[in-house]
């Protein structure tokens, strides 16, 4: 007996290779997952987001104001809304997350400036995701020194530096100290739910098929919707327990603020859980075995993790990646949960993020029910 026989090794090797090739989905995933990672990490992700949406509240329209605005635009970090807005509007847009910065030039700015009263230029930043704003904020640091260089000449030259002609007042809203846990811990709820919920239900139908109980199930007068709901609902409870655990940890271990209503958050979480369960159920009707179901889950989980704004700032991604991101329920849920916990958002503010999840869930459920075969053909 020799210890290692090449032909025995080769026999196992060949067998594995043939089996691998037979399993189309697995084979596809082995090629698809690295390609996807390459594209996502290589092209989509950018932790130095530029062109962040910002709006101006113009207390006056003067030469100085226009100079400041053009200096802000030149930093390349801000995409200013064309029309100035009111303070109330700015507040709303910050809350719903439509803008990341509100820049206020107060009334009598020029007047105060010329008189040397150092007026304040207020920049409010949505700091729920501190990483997303940090570079933009630092780009503003020297604004007070440089913005008006060209305007302060001749008789006004004495207003130039020292101390700066106006004050730059940067206010990080919703997360004043820029604590990254405030952003990560609530987001983790969404990530954990996406991963576990899809995997659990992904196995739901494939398990029936693999264990040979599928035929018996089909032979009985049970309808697809009944099977689907019956398999999904138990996991809503499981998911909700996960939410509760992380929320408790968020409050007591990380002192994450709880500004909004727990009821709203719970209902939104249940909708999000249901959407993920529907995805999992659809995967389980597509996959022929449990391994394939797991791989499909990974295939969905990866872009969710990378393109939702959990790991990297959403607005740092190129347009195409943002479009992909918008179709993922996790992107919307992250905005909801951060909005409710940190900004105290209510139904009206979260509605724009809620309906996409609802729509997603309905579409995916319809697909699952279409795919669910009532015969063995």
């Amino acid at each position, binding site marked *: 007996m020799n210890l290692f026989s090449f032909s025995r090794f080769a026999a196992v090797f060949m067998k594995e290779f043939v089996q691998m090739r037979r399993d189309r989905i697995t084979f596809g995933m082995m090629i698809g997952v690295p390609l996807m990672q390459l594209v996502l990490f290589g092209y989509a992700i950018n932790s130095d987001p530029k062109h962040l949406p910002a709006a101006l509240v113009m207390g006056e329209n003067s030469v100085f104001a226009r100079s400041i605005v053009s200096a802000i635009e030149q930093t390349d970090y801000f995409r200013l809304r064309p029309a100035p807005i009111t303070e109330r509007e700015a507040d709303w847009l910050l809350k719903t997350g439509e803008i990341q910065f509100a820049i206020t030039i107060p009334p009598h700015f020029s007047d105060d400036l010329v008189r040397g009263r150092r007026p304040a230029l207020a920049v409010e930043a949505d700091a729920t995701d501190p990483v997303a704003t940090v570079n933009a904020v630092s780009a503003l640091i020297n604004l007070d020194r440089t913005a008006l260089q060209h305007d302060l000449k001749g008789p006004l030259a004495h207003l130039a530096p020292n101390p700066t002609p106006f004050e730059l007042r940067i206010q990080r809203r919703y997360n004043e100290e820029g604590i990254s846990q405030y952003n990560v811990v609530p987001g983790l709820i969404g990530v954990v739910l996406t991963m576990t919920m899809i995997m659990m239900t992904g196995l739901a139908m494939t398990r029936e098929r693999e*264990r*040979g*109980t599928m*035929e*018996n*199930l*089909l*032979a*009985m*007068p*049970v309808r697809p919707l009944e099977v689907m709901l019956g398999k999904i609902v138990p996991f809503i409870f499981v998911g909700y327990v996960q939410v509760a655990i992380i929320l408790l940890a968020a409050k007591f271990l990380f002192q994450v603020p709880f500004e909004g209503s727990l009821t709203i958050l719970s209902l939104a979480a249940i909708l999000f859980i249901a959407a993920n369960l529907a995805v999992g159920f659809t995967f389980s009707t597509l996959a022929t075995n449990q391994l394939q179901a797991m791989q499909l889950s990974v295939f969905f989980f990866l872009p969710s993790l990378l393109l939702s704004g959990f790991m990297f700032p959403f607005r740092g991604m190129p347009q195409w990646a943002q479009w992909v991101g918008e179709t993922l329920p996790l992107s919307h849920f992250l905005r909801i949960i951060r909005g409710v916990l940190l900004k105290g958002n209510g139904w009206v503010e979260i509605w724009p993020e809620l309906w996409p999840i609802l729509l997603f869930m309905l579409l995916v459920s319809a697909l699952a029910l279409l795919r669910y075969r*009532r*015969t*063995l*053909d």
Partner: protein
Amino acid sequence: MSAATDIPVIAVRGLTKSFEGRKVVSDLDLTVNRGQIYGFLGPNGSGKTTTIRMLCGLLTPDGGSGTCLGYDIRKQAEAIKRQVGYMTQKFGLYEDLTIRENLTFVARVYGLDRVKARVDQALERLGLDERACQLAGKLSGGWKQRLALAACILHEPKLLLLDEPTAGVDPKARRDFWDQIHTLAHEGLTVLVSTHYMDEAERCHEILYIAYGKLLARGTVPAVIAAAHLSAWSVEPIRGDGTEIAALSRQLQQRDGVDMVAPFGAVLHVCGRDEAALDAATRDERIDPRYRWSRVAPSLEDVFIDLMGRSQDNFQ
């Protein structure tokens, strides 16, 4: 016979099903009457399971039409499912549930009333009550099969479709199982049961023999044997160690007029469809003093092996 028994429980014509371009069931006509036990026989891969699945709406036939329990097999699969008990070839209940949990699940899926009472009744009927709390996965083949039968009859179906219910089950359990089936048939159930066992075939009122998707023979056991028009000899070696019987078997197989040679222990069965040709082909060996030749009635197994051989010839 009462009038009700004249209405067929299954009446299908021209049933056809192909998988990947290969005809698995072709142009099958089938009529099954009430209260009878039908044995569904045929070699592996002959299309028994496929036929049964088409009958209860689990597969859509490519061609053909008909009724099962008076419902259209194409359009009324839901109604059929409610009144048919189908026992799958592979154990189809949940191994990680107990016997009672499995039965309760089935009863609820069928929307039955008095779930607990019915489950208790089924447990008692099949002698499962003492094991009610055991996990199905831990049961032996015979007990699993009883559980599967209990699950099939819970909703009081009118027709039982049993797909190789006794494969891999010991003889005692097989006998008990068949006693159950006969009791159920007495109560008015119609049973279509596929099997590979000849003794089981002989316990059926009628048998249906299918090979390569075609129904080749049907009727009572004596009728099927008679219809085959087979003549048979049994050859017993008088001396010798059995090696010459193997040689004889090979020799005879080549002859025209000999359609089938099959050993049964030390005895050889030699059959032919044409009696005169068979006798002529075996004339020399029949006077060989080493063997004792006796004319026998062909067995059901002889008939099946012959039918299978014949259909294979047609099939190629």
